[in-house]
């Protein structure tokens, strides 16, 4: 595995001190263990999703990977660099977007503010205009470019900030809660845009989110974080298949029949209603058996959505 192509963490810990009471004479502090011994290797050919509840350590992990914070202990290498050293060559190859945190100037038209990107990273005006046109088309942005940020909606501002984060086409972009506070349509647009940039420009995204669809739609690989520990690390689709369950709800004519079905298929009994949970791979066979052997009066099939799956993994731990 080429070193400049990876994100590597070895036994990384990060703790910080937070004030727990305000006092002129003796304020008290508490040590928070945000990241607890994470070891991880990821090749930047695929996007990586970081999923977890609030306070799981997602944002801290992003800050460690970008070099904003140093680890308390352990080793981190991103694209062959130690992030915290913040070498210029490293900084040129990364981008960062933090949901809800602005980086553009509010009072001048967005296009003028976005142009700072080409001054920072030193690419030509033609390249800037070409990328801007391409990104604007993908994000469905029109005349808004000529408006100051202060006159834009949250969704429009978010699009501008997102564009600014990787107009310089870095190899690696960190997105921290990119869809936080946005409506469903804008979220969907942003996810499509991220996938477009990954395919078109080969940008690898590391996306931290507590919105499951951000991860499942954009990232082939994912990690699930909880209290600073990794609960799962690997292929997103494998995770979904492994935990994918279907819920079959049936109604039969008699309670005896319901009891029989419940004991045979290990279901939950509720009068003449039985609720069965089956792994998705077995669902077809179970339904065939039920329909051929019993007189079913009502039948409902529900597939667990991805959010349920991630929630269940977090609950079980």
């Amino acid at each position, binding site marked *: 595995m080429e070193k400049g192509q990876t994100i590597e963490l070895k036994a990384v810990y990060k703790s910080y001190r937070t004030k727990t009471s305000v006092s002129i004479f003796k304020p008290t502090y508490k040590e928070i263990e945000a990241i607890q011994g994470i070891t991880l290797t990821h090749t930047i050919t695929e996007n990586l999703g970081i999923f977890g509840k609030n306070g799981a350590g997602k944002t801290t992990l992003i800050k460690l990977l970008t070099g904003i914070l140093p680890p308390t202990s352990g080793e981190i290498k991103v694209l062959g660099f130690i992030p915290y050293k913040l070498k210029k060559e490293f*900084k040129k190859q*990364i981008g960062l977007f933090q949901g809800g945190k602005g980086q553009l100037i509010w009072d*001048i038209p967005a296009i003028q503010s976005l142009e700072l990107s080409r001054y920072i990273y*030193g690419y030509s005006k033609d390249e800037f205009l070409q990328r801007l046109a391409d990104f604007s088309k993908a994000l469905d942005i029109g005349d808004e470019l000529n408006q100051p940020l202060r006159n834009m909606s949250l969704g429009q501002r978010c699009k501008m900030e997102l564009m600014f984060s990787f107009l310089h086409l870095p190899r690696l972009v960190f997105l921290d809660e990119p869809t936080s506070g946005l409506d469903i349509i804008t979220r969907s647009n942003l996810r499509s845009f991220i996938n477009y940039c990954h395919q078109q420009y080969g940008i690898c995204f590391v996306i931290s989110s507590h919105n499951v669809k951000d991860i499942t739609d954009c990232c082939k690989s994912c990690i699930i974080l909880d209290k600073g520990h990794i609960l799962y690390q690997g292929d997103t689709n494998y995770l979904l298949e492994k935990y994918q369950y279907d819920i079959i709800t049936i109604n039969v004519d008699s309670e005896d029949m319901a009891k029989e079905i419940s004991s045979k298929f290990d279901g939950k009994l509720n009068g003449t209603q039985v609720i069965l949970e089956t792994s998705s791979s077995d669902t077809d066979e179970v339904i065939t058996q039920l329909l051929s052997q019993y007189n079913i009066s009502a039948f409902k099939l529900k597939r667990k959505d991805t959010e349920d799956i991630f929630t269940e993994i977090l609950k079980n731990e």
Partner: protein
Amino acid sequence: MSSYYIGLGKQTLKEAMAYRTNFILSFLVILIPLAGELLLAKFVYTKGYQIGTWQLNHLLLYYISATVASEFFAIGTWWDIGNDIKYGGLNYHLIRPYSYFWHNFVVYYSLKLVFIVFALIIAYFAMVIFSGNFIPDIQLLSLLQFFILALIVAPLAFLITFCLSILTFFFMDIDFISKILGVLLPFISGNILPLDIFPATIREILIKLPSAYLVYYPSCILSGNYSWKEFSWVLIEALIWLLIFWILTSILWFRGRKIYEATG
């Protein structure tokens, strides 16, 4: 990278001019205190009093020069830097391939440029009104010395501002510094009265403080005749302060980064 700082300077100027009324009326902030100082000085002298050994025309020129100098070399705590540290805006700056110090230097002086131009215009008209000449009574040598000193004092002024602002790493809220400076600085920098009129012991201390190099010395140089020898000493002492604050700022930045919380 220099193209970045030029681009940033242009954007900052555009931003400053986004609100034209505020922009244009800002000159009152410079005009009103200067008018007050000049009228007060004139009133004092017409009553037969004298401030130190200063002749009225030299004192008026001193005040006009002090107005220009205090715009060129203002110090304080800078809200932008404090907020970046307190609320995590620094995160974005840290991961970009430029120096946070020079980024802020450019923004600071681009915003200042507007006020410096206003100050120069006001200073010119004040000189014309009080001297009755359209050509200000300033020696070319004095102007040359002022601009040489400005090359040292402008970075020094920003370095002090940066140094005070990054104390946010340690105290989170540094409003108290602004308040203390707001009260003390006009006196100790020579903005209200030339430092040489204070009693000897106090004067000896005040003229060695870095604040003296921000207003007092530049104003004295513009309003009087400094020999090259005297000027060289001022320049060397300003350079020493520049070095001291450079070291101090580097230490504070290094230590501050270690405890930076990167909020958000």
